């Protein structure tokens, strides 16, 4: 019933948001102009803004938001913990550290793929460490290991800031860490999309296993689920997807935490059934936030990651209190 309507409703919401995002910005376009720009190959202002600025930004918002929502849903199902998200396991900070090293210590200048590859390496390294430290003693110790690894990666980023070649570089790292979609081009899409898509495939492949894991690892295993492989799929998929997303947009928190919660009740709390709607919800959150950063035009530009965190952090607080109250 509600579950059946949820996905179409989210798709409609996304279409509405996507249309808005194509019209709104520094240069406002009418729907007629926008439509004409999409069909007409002549390179006028509307066409350039549409094809070279707004479309890649829209695609990137969908990809990044989608992978954040999806990985959040997978990790919450995997760890059977409503507070799990890529940031909690250190994936985001590991990716940030990798990207910062690539960019500021000269590797990115050498070859284009350096930034996403370093971010992926950072994300995979944090996941591997968290898995090695925490997997044998249950989900709680995996989460604790993730928090520790996340703190180490965060310290690494601060170290990179501290040793930045110049104050300007430090300023740029800081701004970049706030996360933004401004002025991302098709180059960025091409860089991130393959990893995000492969990561999504791995993550979606865990759906059935996540449902069974609701009964605990022993029962899941008895139902024919390869629990160890599920952990690998989920964590490698998260590292690939979120690592690539972080490499092009900087760190955007809270989407992975919030998106699954928005859809969980409507799908009867089945972890596997939250994946698709959480992906769509994550994409909608990032897209809506990106539109909001374009609409808020007083003072300096508000960064996407900052905006999402400003809205997401109170939600997180509410969630902690709510979870404590209901014990669910």
């Amino acid at each position, binding site marked *: 019933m509600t579950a059946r309507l949820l996905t179409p409703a989210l798709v409609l919401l996304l279409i509405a948001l996507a249309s808005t995002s194509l019209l709104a*910005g*520094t*240069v406002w376009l009418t729907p007629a102009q926008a439509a004409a720009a999409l069909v007409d190959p002549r390179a006028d*202002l509307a066409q*350039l*803004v549409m094809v*070279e*600025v707004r479309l890649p930004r829209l695609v990137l918002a969908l990809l990044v938001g989608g992978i954040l929502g999806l990985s959040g849903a997978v990790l919450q199902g995997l760890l059977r913990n409503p507070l799990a998200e890529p940031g909690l396991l250190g994936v985001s900070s590991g990716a940030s550290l990798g990207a910062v090293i690539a*960019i*500021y210590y*000269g590797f*990115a*200048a050498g070859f284009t793929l350096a930034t996403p590859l370093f971010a992926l390496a950072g994300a995979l390294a944090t996941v591997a460490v968290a898995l090695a430290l925490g997997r044998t003693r249950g989900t709680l110790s995996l989460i604790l290991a993730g928090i520790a690894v996340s703190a180490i990666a965060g310290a690494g980023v601060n170290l990179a800031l501290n040793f930045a*070649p*110049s*104050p*300007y*570089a430090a*300023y*740029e*790292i800081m*701004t*970049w860490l706030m996360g933004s979609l*401004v*002025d991302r*081009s*098709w*180059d960025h899409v091409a860089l991130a999309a393959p990893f995000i898509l492969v990561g999504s495939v791995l993550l979606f492949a865990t759906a059935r296993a996540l449902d069974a894991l609701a009964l605990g690892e022993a029962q899941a295993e008895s139902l024919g689920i390869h629990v160890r492989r599920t952990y690998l799929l989920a964590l490698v998929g998260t590292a690939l997807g979120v690592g690539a997303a972080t490499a092009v947009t900087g760190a955007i928190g809270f989407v992975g935490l919030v998106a699954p919660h928005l859809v969980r009740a409507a799908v009867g709390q089945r972890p596997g059934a939250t994946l698709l709607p959480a992906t769509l919800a994550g994409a909608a959150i990032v897209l809506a936030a990106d539109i909001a950063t374009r609409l808020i*035009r007083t*003072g*300096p*530009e508000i960064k996407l990651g900052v905006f999402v965190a400003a809205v997401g952090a109170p939600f997180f607080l509410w969630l902690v209190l709510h979870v404590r109250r209901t014990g669910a």
Partner: protein
Amino acid sequence: MRRGSALLPACLAALALAGCSAGEPAVPSPGARPLRVMSLNQCADQLVLALLPPERIASVTWLSRDAGTSAMAAEAARVPVNHGQAEEVLAQSPDLVIAGSFTTPALRGMLRRLGYPLVEVEDAASFADIRRITRQIAEAVGEGARGEALIAGMDRDLAALARQPTQAVRVVAWDRSGFAGGAGTLQKAILDAAGARNVAPADAQRRPDMEALLAARPALLVQGSAAPAGASLGDDVTNHRLVRRLWSGRTLGLPQAAYVCGTPAIARAALGLSRSLRDRTS
């Protein structure tokens, strides 16, 4: 500003380096030329380096040796550097300390308590500011005449610029953090003097984006970064495929060193920019 009780530790610290002559007057009398000057601010560095010979400079900030942001990196290489720390001030025991708006309040407070002669300078945002600050520092170091000469040189350059035919070139200025050159910045002052009109939206606080650039359609881009340090995230915007496609060959460099600090030398940078503008647009 008296050294008072702080004299002893200051002398002890200085002994290790150069000795502490008992015959030297503890407080420089007004108008006297402070022998050795220490600058704690990157922009004051530029003026100190322009006004004083190396032997009268105790140290300048380490930032001034970075050719990317310092117009006097070569001169800075000939004098000691500091990192803006109190211990360095004690060790070098200068006769005058010049601090800027970025010097931490803690350090300024400590220097005042220790009784070091301290000159605090503001950041310049216009040519008028530059004249005022140049005079302030020149008088503090006892080189008023030299300061006036620098200002006169700047005014000559500005007058030369003003004589040029005024067909303003439509430009958008970039910086490592995207675009810049908003109202009330030195970068804008240089652009104006050089005969370039910044056509990006004039909100200095908000960095215009790619769409603003497309809408403004400038004839030239004036790229302010060009730091030798290599790639950075700020430069990522410069590498946007649209910028490469539409403005390749229509981009001028204006090194950050030319406008980060307000010194009389920036008129020379404006003159250079003006010449490049004419070359490109004629």
